[in-house]
């Protein structure tokens, strides 16, 4: 354990785009006719304007999908690769799985690589389940013997025993995906590359797949996992790599990387409201220490500053504490019928105190909404602001604190007694 299994040095990948794009920006295929026409036109132009420089090359545009990537991956690491669309995540996996060649750089891999860039690659609709298991297994790099050995396990995992001799074109889409993933899940490579394949299938099956993948990494396999689902990434990976326009922005433990990504990708929704209108001026958490830490099980105090140019008879203010996946955990609302604010023009400060914040150690954000409930109009909102972290407590329990075990924690009292001898 712990020895380097993949070493990537100065890896770059260039694509040439440009004149072979159509109006929608999608790639177009070359056709022989186009090519011939192009050359013919070129010759014609050359004859007409012999002094003009050929413009053909200036229409081409280079696009670096990956720029100077350096990485060292240790055996048993489970790496989550995140980044926005077009950041180069899939290109990296494609190069690692040798589907496409790098433009520069060198990669050394010490192990068998299997890539799962799509569920059911090579499935043929006319063939039945049994035949497709063998075929897909071979495509993913299993030998015939390996497939034979695992066959029953695969069928049981996919829950398609009854339909083995039915052509897969008659399968429901759920069965199809289950079968396809089952084959892939029984690969036993040292390195597994997975690209956003869990997005399909029902929730229960997704859970099963994640469990299977966790087992695999438990066996010391190295996993590369690309997904836009941060929950899955958090659950599965221990390392994170954040890519942006082909470059590694951050390479660290998975929570740091996920938080960083979410924080940077969420627009701090400070809409440019005209300052003459009613708006949220500022939101601050007053209870934070060390920049953005809210101590575990401690007093939480939020301060919201509002401005209104005119009196609002029925103002309402609310805030949500959300986790990094966007789920609301706490929601508080204040109506001006309970405590007066914004009833006359001017600036107001509204403060909310939670005596003991019971949130589990993690990262959180705040959404604030300001509304006129009389005419049911939202005056302003501020989304994903005030990023703060509830750290793990200093004192250690007899067992370790683990990330994402819960979202909420409550003090409790245990009591034990001996009920009977037997």
């Amino acid at each position, binding site marked *: 354990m712990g020895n380097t299994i993949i070493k990537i040095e100065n890896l770059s990948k260039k*694509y040439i785009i440009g004149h072979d794009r159509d109006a929608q920006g999608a790639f177009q*295929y*070359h*056709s*022989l*006719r186009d*090519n011939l026409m192009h050359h013919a036109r070129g010759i014609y132009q050359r004859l007409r304007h012999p002094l003009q420089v050929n413009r053909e090359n200036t229409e081409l545009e280079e696009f670096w999908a990956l720029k100077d990537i350096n990485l060292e991956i240790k055996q048993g690491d489970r790496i989550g690769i995140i980044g926005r669309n077009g950041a180069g995540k899939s290109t990296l996996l*494609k*190069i*690692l*799985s*040798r*589907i*496409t*060649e*790098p*433009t*520069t*750089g*060198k*990669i*050394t*891999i*010490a*192990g*068998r*690589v299997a*890539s799962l*860039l*799509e569920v059911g*690659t*090579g499935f*043929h609709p*006319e*063939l039945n389940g049994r*035949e497709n298991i*063998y*075929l897909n297994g*071979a*495509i*993913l790099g299993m*030998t*015939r013997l390996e497939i034979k050995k695992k066959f029953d396990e695969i069928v049981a995992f996919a829950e398609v025993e009854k339909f083995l001799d039915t052509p897969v074109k008659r399968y429901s889409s759920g069965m199809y995906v289950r079968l396809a993933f089952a084959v892939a899940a029984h690969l036993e490579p*040292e390195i597994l590359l997975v690209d956003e394949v869990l997005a399909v299938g029902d929730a229960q099956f997704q859970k099963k797949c994640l469990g299977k993948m966790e087992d695999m990494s438990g066996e010391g396999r190295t996993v590369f996992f690309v997904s836009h689902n941060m929950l899955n990434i958090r659950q599965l990976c221990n390392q994170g790599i954040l890519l942006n326009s082909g470059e590694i922005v951050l390479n660290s433990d998975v929570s740091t990387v996920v938080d960083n990504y979410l924080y940077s990708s969420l627009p701090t929704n400070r809409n440019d409201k005209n300052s003459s209108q009613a708006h949220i001026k500022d939101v601050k958490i007053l209870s934070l220490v060390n920049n953005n830490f809210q101590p575990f099980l401690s007093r939480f105090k939020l301060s919201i500053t509002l401005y209104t140019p005119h009196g609002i008879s029925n103002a309402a203010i609310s805030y949500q504490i959300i986790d990094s996946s966007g789920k609301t955990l706490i929601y508080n609302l204040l109506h001006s019928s309970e405590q007066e604010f914004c009833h006359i023009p001017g600036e107001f400060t509204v403060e909310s105190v939670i005596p003991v914040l019971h949130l589990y150690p993690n990262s959180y954000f705040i959404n604030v909404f300001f509304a006129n409930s009389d005419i049911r109009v939202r005056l302003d909102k501020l989304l994903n602001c005030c990023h703060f972290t509830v750290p793990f407590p200093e004192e250690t329990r007899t067992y370790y604190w683990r990330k994402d075990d819960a979202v909420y924690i409550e003090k409790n009292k245990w009591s034990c007694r001996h009920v009977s001898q037997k």
Partner: protein
Amino acid sequence: MKEYHLTIEAGKLHQRYLKDLWVYRELFLFLAWRDILIRYKRTIIGIAWSVIRPLLTMLVFTVVFGKIAKLPSNGVPYAIMVYCAMLPWQLLANTVSEGGNALINNNSLVSKVYFPRIIIPTTSLIVSLIDFGISMSLLGLLMLWYQFFPSWTIIFMPIFLILTCVPALGLVYWISGLNVKYRDFRYVVPFIVQFGLYISPVGFSSSVIPDKWRLIYSLNPMVGVIDGFRWMVIGGGSNIFLSGFLLSLGLSMLLFLSGFLFFRKIEREFADFI
């Protein structure tokens, strides 16, 4: 546990190509098995097709060239003479027309999994060989019908079979590669196959070609192969034109090698292209 080591370096992937071909041999067999399964999945149509096609072509050629044009056949039943040529020709034509589009039909494989791409057009040869086997048994029936006993030289069948595969592979590598690069190239393929049928000595014996043209005629690699097949089945009666035969063989090899190298050269871009 076997140690796997792999180095991916820009522009140096091709160094381990031949080794990879060996590593991926099982996938090759699986893909061939898949293609055969699919082809014969609806059994009756599948097998009937590989019987009807050469049989009908043979009938037409026998009537047109043998009966109407009254071309010579050196005392051999004209149908058998044509059918001997149909065997290698069908092998080549099927391989080319199936294999030419194979990469595009399998584009999900090409863009999602690594393996030596040359496996894909090559599998079409395996499927065509199955067809060849079926057509071959039909030749046996034909001989029974005409009560024609083949020459002892028929034992050289495997050698001539290999000689047919060589230009077939060369051609299919060229065509499938060009097909990925230029999508409208596939419209040219049926034309090439059709045209080839008429410029190859399928419907007639190559001995009808005047001697002074025969060497030039042998620039078509299929001439040597087809002559070879006839010689093998019919025997000395259709004597072989040796220098032409050797020229055809040489060109076949050249076609194969150039096809392989061309395919290798553009293969690296397939995933970005397809």
